[in-house]
């Protein structure tokens, strides 16, 4: 008998492949009687060498593993592959009782489904009641949709109410009977009009209510893999990769992902370079120098920088540059002198901003691109329109000759140095002021792109990271660079601005 049955499957498969499509159903129905025997044959297999656990750590149960793979195959639409895996492994996605239950739900055999559900072997009575409630609710709504009001009332009174669960919903269902047919349809549309669609959704709801050992949750395999990838990325200490994650290898960014080799030396200035800033789109770099000039460099396709324009006209060393939001204009600030606005494309000076008798020491753009800000040697800050008209002015108490400030992307928040060791966050809409108090003199700061973090350089060779989203909170502290005489600046960078770079007086970049 065993020998005979072993011969049957190959010949049947051969016949199936040669027979017309109309006969496929008959072939499958012929296969059905063999299935129980197949299951019986599968039972001795574990003792023949298939371990109960798989994986090198021995923590994955074979049957669970196969089931979530089977579930994934069915979810992807590979019906045949899923069925073959169930047959070959001898591990069914669901037990015969659960399969019967699912079929009854999809066929709308509500009473049979309830009976089958009680045979599944659930221990928690509340879970059984919740599941039965969902089934009977569907029955009620479909009867109502088919204008079988008496049947619906009977279901509500004799079957749903005695369950004693979700009374609020029972009241809503009662209201459906009293409502006019239009309201019934409106109410029903929430669950979907087509029976097949709503029954599939009911099955998903039941899947959530019933234990995962009874019905494998949706997308379980995808969820596990996403967890693994997320853990890998979060464990990636030097994560600086724009590429997506891959299932083929564990994710890991080595130190080589961080820039550490000099690839180009720019030689055009005749004296010290005091300030650098890339344009917002990354296509240009502006450099400011003690030689009283600024240079606009163009980043070519290979990432090499080519001199585009040398901007001359300042009578003093240029100590700061600022790109307009659209990168079409560049501000330069001469040291305690004036601010000049340049056209990036032509290199021409468009405007000079000055205040008689007072020097300007910093410059920046408003996010709208129509106003500029500057710090003055008399410790005040000025807001100008593009024509040079002074729009607003406010007082600072700064005592140093540098005067950093920043404006949030929405233009509401102005951040400026206040006293020696204080930074002021001023909300222009609410007129509210918040302060960051440091324990040492502040030499410079920079704002992250998302506007949530502030990087503060101190005279004591420390860099503090502040979260300024709500009340300012210092979240980190960095040390190691050298600072004794000069203004050292630091900035955010890398993928999603997850890194911090800082200059240093020992000619290193940290």
């Amino acid at each position: 008998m065993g020998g005979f049955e072993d011969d049957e499957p190959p010949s049947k498969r051969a016949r199936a492949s040669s027979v017309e499509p109309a006969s496929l159903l008959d072939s499958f129905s012929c296969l059905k009687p063999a299935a129980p025997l197949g299951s019986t044959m599968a039972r001795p297999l574990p003792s023949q060498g298939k371990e109960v656990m798989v994986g090198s750590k021995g923590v994955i149960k074979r049957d669970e593993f196969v089931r979530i793979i089977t579930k994934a195959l069915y979810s992807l639409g590979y019906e045949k592959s899923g069925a073959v895996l169930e047959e070959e492994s001898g591990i069914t996605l669901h037990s015969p009782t659960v399969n019967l239950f699912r079929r009854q739900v999809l066929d709308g055999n509500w009473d049979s489904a309830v009976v089958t559900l009680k045979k599944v072997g659930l221990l928690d009575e509340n879970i059984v009641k919740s599941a039965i409630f969902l089934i009977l609710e569907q029955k009620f709504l479909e009867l109502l949709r088919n204008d079988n009001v008496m049947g619906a009332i009977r279901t509500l009174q004799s079957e749903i109410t005695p369950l004693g669960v979700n009374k609020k919903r029972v009241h809503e269902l009662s209201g459906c009977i009293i409502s006019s047919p239009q309201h019934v349809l409106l109410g029903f549309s929430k669950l979907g009009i087509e029976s097949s669609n709503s029954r599939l959704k009911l099955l998903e709801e039941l899947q959530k209510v019933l234990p995962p050992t009874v019905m494998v949750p949706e997308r379980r395999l995808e969820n596990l893999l996403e967890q693994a990838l997320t853990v890998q990325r979060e464990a990636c200490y030097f994560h600086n990769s724009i590429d997506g994650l891959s299932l083929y290898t564990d994710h890991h960014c080595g130190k080589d992902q961080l820039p550490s080799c000099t690839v180009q030396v720019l030689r055009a200035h005749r004296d010290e370079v005091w300030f650098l800033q890339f344009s917002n789109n990354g296509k240009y770099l502006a450099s400011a120098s003690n030689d009283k000039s600024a240079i606009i460099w163009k980043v070519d396709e290979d990432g090499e920088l080519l001199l585009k324009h040398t901007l001359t006209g300042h009578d003093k060393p240029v100590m700061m540059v600022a790109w307009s939001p659209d990168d079409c204009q560049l501000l330069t600030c001469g040291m305690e002198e004036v601010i000049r606005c340049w056209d990036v494309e032509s290199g021409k000076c468009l405007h000079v901003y000055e205040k008689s008798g007072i020097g300007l020491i910093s410059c920046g753009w408003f996010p709208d691109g129509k106003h500029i800000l500057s710090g003055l040697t008399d410790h005040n800050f000025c807001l100008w329109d593009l024509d040079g008209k002074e729009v607003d002015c406010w007082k600072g108490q700064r005592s140093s000759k540098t005067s950093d400030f920043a404006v949030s992307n929405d233009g509401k928040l102005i951040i400026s140095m206040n006293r020696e060791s204080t930074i002021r966050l001023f909300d222009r809409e609410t007129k509210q002021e918040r302060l960051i108090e440091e324990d040492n003199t502040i030499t410079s700061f920079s704002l992250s792109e998302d506007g949530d973090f502030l990087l503060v350089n101190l005279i004591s060779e420390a860099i503090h990271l502040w979260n300024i989203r709500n009340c300012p909170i210092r979240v980190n502290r960095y040390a190691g660079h050298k600072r004794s005489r000069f203004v050292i600046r630091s900035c955010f960078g890398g993928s999603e601005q997850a890194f911090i770079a800082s200059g240093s007086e020992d000619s290193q970049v940290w």
Partner: protein
Amino acid sequence: MGLLFVESLPGPKVFKCKFCGVDSASPDAIVSKEFRGRHGRAYLFDSVVNVSLGPREDRLLMTGLHTVNDIYCSCCQRLLGWRYEKAYSEDQKYKEGKYILEKHMMLKEG
């Protein structure tokens, strides 16, 4: 070299570096005027600005052994005085963390 970080002090009578004119100390920060430096009178200050520190070294002064750093003007790099890092006599401990500026190297405006 680079962009110097220069601070200015409030008030009319501020001690400045004689050679480059940047502010060095405020009269409010004077602790004592009874000190002597290499070139004569010197003042002891609580705090100073626009200075950078030299290396730490032990030095035998009139009042005993001290560990000090020379301080230089951060703008023109002239030697202006020193900072007391550590005093070894108990009666000299009050000097620790304080600065000596030599009167000879200072301008006082007003």
